[in-house]
């Protein structure tokens, strides 16, 4: 088995592989697949919007509308401010559809077998850290922008920075909050990347291991990957909303969160 495995010359690359370079910018296999994924998504959404605009409905448009309505209901339930909910809608919904379509492209047959200059052409853009990191950066910057707009620059910075002499616990708490923000963004990027990348590798490995039986075995794993893709898109979408809602509801410097260490210490002091 191991000999067969080696005979296939399985090469797993964490980073996406460059096919061409245009003006010094590497065009990787993930970018190519991502372009087609985005194109499919844009066509689907423009088609649905066009039909809705002209009041011509069919089952497919109904499906897109149903998904959109569900996402909208989720946004409204997570973000209490209706205006902010509407503002964050384009970003959150685009993240959902983008991740969903691109993740599902990783299930396409021909993964790792269709090659140009020895480089596989198909690689889901969700299995490329440049994309997932980019999405996470956009999410975190947007969250900070809305937090600054809502709380103001000073109050927002007070979430992270306290005078360590006056309020050492608060300063430590702020530091933890800052680390938390960075870790949230990183986790957001790595979670999606890890799942998509592992999914692709899993499909390749299962295809190699099952050999001729892969015709029967692979569809099961493909179905599983489709399900995971839906989950990942939903998780990214919901986390974007939760981070936005958290930044909005952050307490001021004078208020103490009932779950914070400061509040816990105060409760203990009162009991004593």
């Amino acid at each position, binding site marked *: 088995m191991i000999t067969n495995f080696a005979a296939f010359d399985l090469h797993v690359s964490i980073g996406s592989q460059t096919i061409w370079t245009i003006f010094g910018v590497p065009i990787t296999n993930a970018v190519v697949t991502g372009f087609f994924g985005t194109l499919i998504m844009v066509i689907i959404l423009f088609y649905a919007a066009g039909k809705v605009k002209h009041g011509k409905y069919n089952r497919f448009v109904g499906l897109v509308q149903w998904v959109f309505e569900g996402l*909208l209901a989720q946004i409204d339930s997570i973000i209490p401010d209706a205006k902010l909910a*509407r503002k964050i809608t*384009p970003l959150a919904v685009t993240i959902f559809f983008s991740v969903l379509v691109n993740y599902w492209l990783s299930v396409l047959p021909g993964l790792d077998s269709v090659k140009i200059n020895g480089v596989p052409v198909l690689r889901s853009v969700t299995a490329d850290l440049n994309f997932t990191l980019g999405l996470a950066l956009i999410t975190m910057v947007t969250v900070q922008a809305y937090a600054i707009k809502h709380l103001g620059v000073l109050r927002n910075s007070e979430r992270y920075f306290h005078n360590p002499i006056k309020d050492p616990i608060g300063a430590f708490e702020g530091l933890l909050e800052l680390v938390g923000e960075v870790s949230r963004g990183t986790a957001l990027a790595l979670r999606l990347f890890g799942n998509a990348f592992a999914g692709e590798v899993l499909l390749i490995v299962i295809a190699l291991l099952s050999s001729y039986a892969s015709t029967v075995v692979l569809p099961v794993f493909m179905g599983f990957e489709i399900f995971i893709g839906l989950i990942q898109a939903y998780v990214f979408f919901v986390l974007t909303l939760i981070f936005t809602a958290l930044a909005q509801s952050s307490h001021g410097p004078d208020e103490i969160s009932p779950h914070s260490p400061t509040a816990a210490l105060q409760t203990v002091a009162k009991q004593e």
Partner: protein
Amino acid sequence: MLAMTQFAAASNSLFGVLGIDWKLLLLQIVAFLLLVWLLGKYVYPWLLKSVDARKQAIEDTLEAADEAKQKADKAEKEVAKMLQKAREQAADIITTAKDEATAAVENAETKARQHAETIVSNAQAEIQKNISAAKRELYNETLDLVAAATEKVTVGALAKDSLDEKLVSSALEDSKS
């Protein structure tokens, strides 16, 4: 300085292994933001509008249903009120009718009684009158008979004794007939 250079080199190699390329990252970010703008401008407003329209339609329907329910409740209350009023009116009418019927019966009875009494009294008066008339007639006839008898007796006595008998008997026969 050497440590910093080493750290930069290490981080560069780490990013390289992970496939992170700053140009590519920037390109992806710009492309995604463009996508968000494009969809936010030309796609989502229509989908949002349709969702809002549907929500509005549902709200309107619920409102209309609520309004209809309130109207139905109001109408039901009014009907109940009207029924109550009608029952009261019917009860009044029945009571009045009963009273009036009783009064009418009593009145009719009184009138009938009076009429009967009048008839009876009239009949009695008539009978009395007839009796009086009969008495008077009988008296007159008796007088006439007596006078006739007397006249015949007187005339017979003057003529013959046998004639007296004949006269008396004929007078008696006349009176009988």
